[in-house]
């Protein structure tokens, strides 16, 4: 049995005290332990930003790559070894800004990975600039007159692209988030969990209390929408009431399911066969 201490990293944590990331890390560990996934069987891939550091604070296989590029790395890893359990830690800037194009195409491919977007609606690592999810009017040192671009709605975009698992969570509800992560990992296909989290250093509007007063569990009645129209309503609900939970869930063949050559086993365990190449060369 996997124990919480198996995931204990000896590496010093570098987040600000009170950061929403702590809740996400705790929920992730809890989910992995509950699913009995040992660290040896887990691959966490991350981009750049405070979220990108997450796997350093776990004890597991990890690849901490470039800003915005975690999803292509994850796609490549799944092609090489499609049996891998892959979790991606990204942030609102990393995933929806720098890596926006990869976000669109990872959904189109339906790569079987679980994407956790630590969405604090601000740039933390670079000290407080607006992010793609910042509200209109958000004032920062770079946007002194307020943000003039509309916020990016990751849930609506994911739904419109046909994502099979779309969820929203709040870093303050650890048990709920753990449950969503477990569902996301179990789900065969691309799963997006956009995690609302406070930034104690730079976002003084969307605080822990601000979220706590607004979020409600949309799956409370035990139902999970598999209807796009209903899901879109939750995806676009924001303000006094913010739904958290699984907004949409519907399985379909994954990216690697559709690649015939992978049916004979993971690419990284296949054996080089010089006879095949000799045959090919003899036909030239």
């Amino acid at each position, binding site marked *: 049995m996997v124990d919480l201490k198996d995931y204990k990293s000896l*590496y010093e944590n570098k987040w600000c005290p009170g950061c929403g990331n702590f809740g996400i890390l705790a929920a992730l560990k809890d989910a992995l332990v509950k699913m009995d996934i040992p*660290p*040896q*069987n*887990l*691959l966490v*891939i991350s981009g750049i930003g405070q979220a990108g*550091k997450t796997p*350093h604070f776990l*004890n*597991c*296989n*990890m*690849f*901490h*790559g*470039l800003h915005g*590029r975690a*999803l*292509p*790395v*994850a*796609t*490549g*890893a*799944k*092609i*090489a*070894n499609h049996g*891998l*359990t892959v979790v991606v830690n990204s942030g609102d800037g990393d995933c929806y800004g720098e890596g926006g*194009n*990869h976000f*669109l*195409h990872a959904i189109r491919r339906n790569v079987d990975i679980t994407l956790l977007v630590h969405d604090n609606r601000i740039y933390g690592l670079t000290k407080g600039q607006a992010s793609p999810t910042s509200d209109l009017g958000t004032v920062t040192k770079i946007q002194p007159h307020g943000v003039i671009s509309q916020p990016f709605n990751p849930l609506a975009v994911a739904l419109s692209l046909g994502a099979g698992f779309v969820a929203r969570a709040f870093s303050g509800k650890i048990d709920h988030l753990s449950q969503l992560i477990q569902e996301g990992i179990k789900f065969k296909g691309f799963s997006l969990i956009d995690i609302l989290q406070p930034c104690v250093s730079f976002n003084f509007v969307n605080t822990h209390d601000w979220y706590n007063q607004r979020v409600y569990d949309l799956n409370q009645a035990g139902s999970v929408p598999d209807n796009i129209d209903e899901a879109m309503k939750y995806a676009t609900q924001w303000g006094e009431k913010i739904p958290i939970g699984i907004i949409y869930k519907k399985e379909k063949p994954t990216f690697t399911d559709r*690649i*015939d*050559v*992978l049916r*004979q086993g993971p*690419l*990284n365990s*296949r054996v*080089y066969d*010089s006879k*095949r*190449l*000799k045959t*090919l*060369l003899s036909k*030239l």
Partner: protein
Amino acid sequence: MAIDITIVIGGQAGQGILTVGELITLAGQKSGFYIFANNEFESRIRGGHSFYQIRISDHPVEAPDSNVHLLVALNPETFHIHKTKLTSGGIVLTEDAVNSATEQILKVPFNDLAEKTGSKITANAVAAGACLSLLGAPLERFKEIITEQFHEKGTEILNKNLMAAELGYQAVKTESFKWSFKWNPDPPKGVLIDGAKAIALGAIAGDCRMAAFYPMSPATGILVHLTSFSDDFPLVVEQAEDEIAAINMAIGASFAGVRSFTATSGGGFCLMTEGLGLAGITETPIVIVDAQRPGPATGLPTRTAQGDLLFSIHAAQDEFPRFVFAPSTPVEAYETTARAFNLADKYQVPAIILVDKYFTDSLFTTTRPFQAPDVIQNFTATDEDIADPKAYQRYLLTDSGVSPRALPCVGQSLVVVSGNEHREDGHISEAVTDRISMVDKRNAKTHSMIKEMNPPKAYNGESELLLVGWGSTQGAIKESIDLLRSQGVDIGCLIFTDLWPFPYDTSYPALSKAKRFFMVEQNRSSQLGSLIREQTGLTASGSVLKYDGRPFYPSEIVEAITRINRKR
């Protein structure tokens, strides 16, 4: 009299130039001649001026010849553009109303003859038939080629093309052509292959399992060929959303344990440079082909260049080891690509292969066979290779700079990798000692990598004068050496395929032997000349540089060198 005939087929894009060219090329190859063919086209699908140039010879040829013996003008523009290249006794085949007092024009109504078969589309077979008739090829040989090419399209299409071929053939049968030659039924001298296909085959020979790419001329052909093999090999080729995704996918696949690949041109390679650095700092092996075209930015999309040498050596910020190769022939491209996969894996570094539009798109006749490796050496580590897998450190400091590379989720070892500067265990570190030891560790590999580098290839290397080039210009340079030597010039050449880490130990003595050496490159600043000066302190006495986007003709190099020599 040696046979060395050049045929140019020109017209608008979409007129079937390639089809005519391929039929003639196949007829020549299957009759035991050496074939070289290149094509020049504009960045458009229809219209403009394109041409396909075929050289048929009884001795190996690896460059285009500037003399044209037979010009097939599918439109009047082709005649006007190429007529000055016609050699004495050369013939222009055309159906257009073109008049000339100086050139011998043979009017053949390609389309009218094609209509007799009931299908205008067979005009290409008519044209090819007329060409081969003038060249003296037996009709039966040509009919065999037509049958091979069209039998899968059904009896009706095949018969129409056979009829068209014969109509074209008979239309000019009584004409005499000064450059007609004897066609013996000899077996093929080698395989007819373009550079792009050779690289794709080389990737298979390097046990490439994953390729990610974004379409870009002139690299796309490499991925098209690779994809055509992918049903028969454990290989996945994925079209990425952009070049940034392509290189990051390749890195992810390599990290998870398969040899991976991407190919692009200069603009796409620009987008890949941050990923190149990621491969560098994470010590993840990957192979990247940069099929060069003139730049910067979009530049000339369908033309050729050698402008990315210094860029590929220096691409991405800061310093990390990499390999850079530039093969000269298809067999060498095949072997170099396979070798690049092995070396990238062995040293856990990126390897870059520089080719160009001229090389990827030209057809060459191979002069030695492609060999399939019997085994592929495995350079990764498993738990059995690691003393204490639970204490595994991905970036363990070693004398060679190469650390045992375990794969994620394969054993008990946890593989921790970061593109941030890191400690031996892979976690981020900003400590001065870690920074220095990791930079030193990565760059320590260069000592062993340089020993893997082949010396520049010498051809008449003991001469007073040497021409120095790299990659695809080898064919034109070597032929220019033959021409100059036949004029009594004591000249040879050195051609670099292995460029980085720079093979100083073998290059310095090879260059020093000559009284003078001249650079021959397809860029404006003589990039290899700069590199040689930087690395050896030796300075070229001059250079022959071409950056108009078109390949070198051997005669251009001869003229330039003759001019330089005369000035002295």
